[in-house]
């Protein structure tokens, strides 16, 4: 009988971690639906980028208020997780505060966790105000699930931190009462002010409060862990690979499509036989599609980007098209990509491992051409993203599909392109007049 709590704990732990692992495998599977792109180079620079941008939050603090609040919550999250390690060991072994033997250092740790927990609560309150009360456009424009998602995450944080402090407060009271198993350990700079609430209660009641808070806290963490898959909050994990695999090239450099290079080389080669059968094996595969009309046409880093996006909206708030009232919103590009990718993934799960055409695609069903054509390719969104996402690369890949597969560019652009084709300039001037300026 005495092992029942341990057994229940292990079951909860295995179930929580197991379900989470199952969903994370889905995320990885979905990301791998993307086309291959080689990001195995420059390991040193990639680690540095990850250390600076994800671990070091260097781009977060470019907006100081949101940035500093975020750093507090982030540090709280990481550091308080050391305490979760103790909770898990205690839970499995049936011990209580197994790290208490660390003595003064343990006091320091618990004390720091408490102060951080308080700071997290304050920050989360301010975050909530920013999202719901203060008039900040990038949050005001969120409706429905994305808005609720943002708030639910904050409520989770409040509940978890409150349970953590309640647990400690009750523990402190029990320590002072000299209850069994409750060794005197830890420093409680915050919960010592909560502890007096339990004055006069029986040892049994306080014990129930302590155990209740302990259990709800760890179960809450497991629920929160599993919430990530359904939420924008996946960034707490994916920010690391996302910054590692981010594009390191200058922002102005767009990739040169290799499939096009091969065709261009063939066209430019005077010795190529225009009637020759395609080189290579006899594979009957379809010719490669140019650009992207659906998520599987994007590369896996772009799909990773979409799962990593936290929907903070810094990209959209910096976008010149969005600021001047156009429909384009880089944040929406990322959210649409993730929603469609999730839809494709669910479709695969439902149909026993293979995708069954659902008559939908990313283009038009999610992202309209009006959005795509409003982009100035200025890279403001890429610069603004605190975790290295590039909405621009998706926009360009979708434009490529529109132009090269569908010839569906706006008329003005078609005129510009035929000018380039015919006379080597975007305007209808003769190439032979190119030097006329020198004697005008």
């Amino acid at each position, binding site marked *: 009988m005495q092992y029942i709590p341990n057994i229940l704990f292990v079951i909860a732990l295995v179930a929580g971690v197991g379900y989470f692992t199952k969903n994370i495998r889905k995320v990885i599977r979905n990301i791998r639906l993307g086309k291959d792109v080689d990001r195995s180079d420059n390991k040193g620079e990639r680690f540095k980028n990850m250390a600076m941008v994800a671990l070091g939050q260097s781009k977060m603090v470019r907006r100081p208020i949101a940035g500093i609040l975020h750093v507090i919550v982030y540090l709280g999250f990481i550091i308080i997780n050391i305490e979760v390690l103790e909770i898990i060991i205690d839970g499995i072994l049936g011990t209580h505060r197994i790290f208490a033997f660390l003595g003064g250092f343990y006091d320091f740790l618990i004390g720091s966790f408490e102060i951080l927990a308080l700071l997290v609560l304050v920050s989360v309150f301010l975050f909530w105000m920013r999202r719901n009360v203060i008039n900040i456009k990038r949050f005001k424009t969120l409706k429905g699930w994305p808005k609720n998602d943002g708030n639910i995450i904050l409520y989770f944080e409040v509940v978890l931190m409150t349970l953590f402090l309640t647990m400690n407060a009750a523990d402190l009271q029990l320590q002072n009462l000299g209850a069994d198993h409750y060794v005197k350990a830890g420093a409680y700079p915050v919960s010592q002010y909560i502890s007096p609430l339990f004055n006069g209660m029986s040892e049994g009641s306080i014990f129930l409060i302590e155990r209740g808070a302990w259990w709800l806290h760890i179960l809450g963490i497991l629920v929160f862990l599993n919430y990530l898959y359904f939420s924008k909050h996946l960034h707490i994990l994916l920010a690391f690979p996302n910054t590692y695999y981010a594009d390191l090239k200058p922002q102005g450099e*767009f990739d040169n499509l290799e499939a096009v290079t091969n065709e*261009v080389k063939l066209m*430019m080669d005077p010795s190529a036989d225009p009637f020759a059968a395609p080189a290579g094996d006899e594979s009957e595969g379809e010719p490669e599609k140019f650009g992207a009309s659906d998520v599987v046409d994007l590369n896996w880093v772009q799909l990773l980007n979409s799962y990593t996006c936290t929907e903070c909206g810094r990209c959209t708030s910096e976008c010149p098209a969005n600021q001047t009232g156009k429909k384009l919103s880089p944040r929406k590009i990322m959210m649409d990509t993730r929603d469609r990718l999730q839809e494709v993934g669910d479709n695969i799960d439902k149909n026993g491992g293979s995708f069954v055409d659902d008559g939908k695609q990313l283009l038009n069903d999610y992202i309209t051409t009006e959005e795509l054509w*409003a982009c100035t390719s200025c890279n403001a969104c890429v610069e603004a993203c605190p975790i290295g996402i590039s909405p621009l690369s998706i926009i360009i890949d979708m434009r490529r599909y529109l*132009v090269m597969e569908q010839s569906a560019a706006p008329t003005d652009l078609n005129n510009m392109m035929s000018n380039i084709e015919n006379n080597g*300039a975007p*305007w209808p001037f003769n190439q032979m*007049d190119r*030097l006329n*300026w020198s004697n005008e």
Partner: protein
Amino acid sequence: MSETVKVPTMAEYMAEGKQPEVLFWVGCAGSFDDRAKKITKAFVKLLNKANVDFAVLGTEESCTGDPAKRAGNEFLFQMQAVTNIEVMNAYEIKKVVTACPHCFNTLKNEYPSLGGDYEVMHHTQFLKSLLDEGRLTIEGGKFKGKRITFHDPCYLGRANNVYEAPRDLIKKLEGELIEMKRCKRNGLCCGAGGAQMFKEPEPGNKDVNIERTEDALETKPDIIAAGCPFCNTMMTDGIKNKEKEDSVQVLDVAELIANAQDL
């Protein structure tokens, strides 16, 4: 604008069996756009003043393909690129300078993997290097004490992290360089990039160039300095829209330096 400037072509150099120090890539705007041609001439005057041995491709130059690529026409871009690279490689070009950030970005970043590997400089970088080498002197002249604000072209700034060269040049004019609230990596686009120059904007409530002109006017400038022929057009249109053309000039950095010396 009826003054002839000395502009040798690569073909002429080749005929004499010589190689210039640098190829000046003029670009389509610089060749054909009336406003941008003035920038081209100003830059050529500076090159001549500094005794730079340069040449242009002239009628052998063609669009880099930038607007086609940003519009999504990778095919047309690569056709342009491969054609230009053939010409440049035949002339054994090593170093290229251009007054257009779009040409600059494309030549510098997107040509190498297609076989065109050159040292590419924006004209503000090149002028800065002439200044540092003592080949060019810059004086304030009529711009002494003027309030000048610099609009960062996206394809020079964010795209390639060139922020200081144009500013270093402007500071030499002994004017007052005043930054807009949004500048350098936070600079706002003029609205022309991504092939927007060649089409009508999508429906909205404002044009991007008006938004940016308002940023610039906030600094109460005498001059809005630009480093891109397209930004120049957009900002000039913005100033006209605000009916400020009598009090605010839009000038390229090269024009500022050339005009200051009455070249």
